[in-house]
């Protein structure tokens, strides 16, 4: 805090006038406007939530409907108790698995 200054005090005296009288309907109209804003915000939030839920549901449905059928890879079961993975582990023999 700096020391009081005479020049600043003069400006403060210039500003030192009584508060103006607030008109009667101003606060009521401001509250009404604020209420409208609140309602608009609530509506916007509800619309956004509905859109979000709809998007998630649509995504799930699309994924379920258009999921590609499982295709057996070229390799796999060889029929003699051994199998190999197409991913790249190479042939795994039965004794090794045991």
């Amino acid at each position, binding site marked *: 805090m700096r020391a009081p200054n005479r*020049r*600043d005090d*003069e*400006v*403060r*005296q*210039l*500003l*030192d*006038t*009584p*508060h*103006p*009288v*607030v*008109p009667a309907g*101003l*606060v009521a*109209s*401001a*509250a009404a*406007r*604020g*209420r409208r*804003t*609140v309602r608009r*915000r609530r509506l916007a939030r509800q619309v956004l939530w509905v859109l979000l839920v709809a998007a998630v549901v649509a995504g799930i449905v699309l994924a379920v409907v258009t999921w590609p059928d499982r295709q057996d890879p070229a390799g796999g079961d060889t029929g003699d108790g051994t199998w190999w993975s197409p991913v790249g582990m190479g042939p795994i023999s039965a004794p090794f698995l045991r």
Partner: protein
Amino acid sequence: MTSNTWLPSHGRVGKRRAAAEIRRDAEFAAFTAGAAGRLLHTATLLTGDREQAERLLTATLARTYADWLRLRADDPYDQARAELVRRFACRPWWRRPRGGVLARLTAQERLVVTMRYFEGVAEEQTAAQLGLPTDRVRAIGARATATLRSRRYDPAGPAPRAADRTEGRPPSGRPQEPARTVAEARDRADRAARRAAEKVAP
């Protein structure tokens, strides 16, 4: 309040929201009863015009009302003043203020003078709210002070200051720390006048 009572939670949510609305209305009414005059004074100093100040104050109070439940422990007056300042500072250049006590100052100088000298906001806080460096705020304030002191602008002639002063004194001998800002002193004077009027009325 709510029409669907077949789900218990729905009725409860409606009641809670209604209670919040009632609380908001009551608290907002109490807040405006105490602070609207001071905010209108600030807006009048900024815009220089009564009608514009009322419009600015209405917009500010509407925003404050809408945000009331969000500001939990913050001072609503500080929030409202920040909103007022923001709304005024974001105005385009063709809506520049004219007239009023600070008629010879630019919009930025009006902002600095009003916040620094009328509201008593610290330099750093003023700078943060206006998005300026602190030195710049100090320089603007010094320039505005020099402008105001160079030739006093007084459209209505010298106001009866001494009468106001004596009227604004607290009536009782209760020890009270001196007001730190102009706005605070005016608040006290208003409150004392209202108390005196209430004492006379009944």
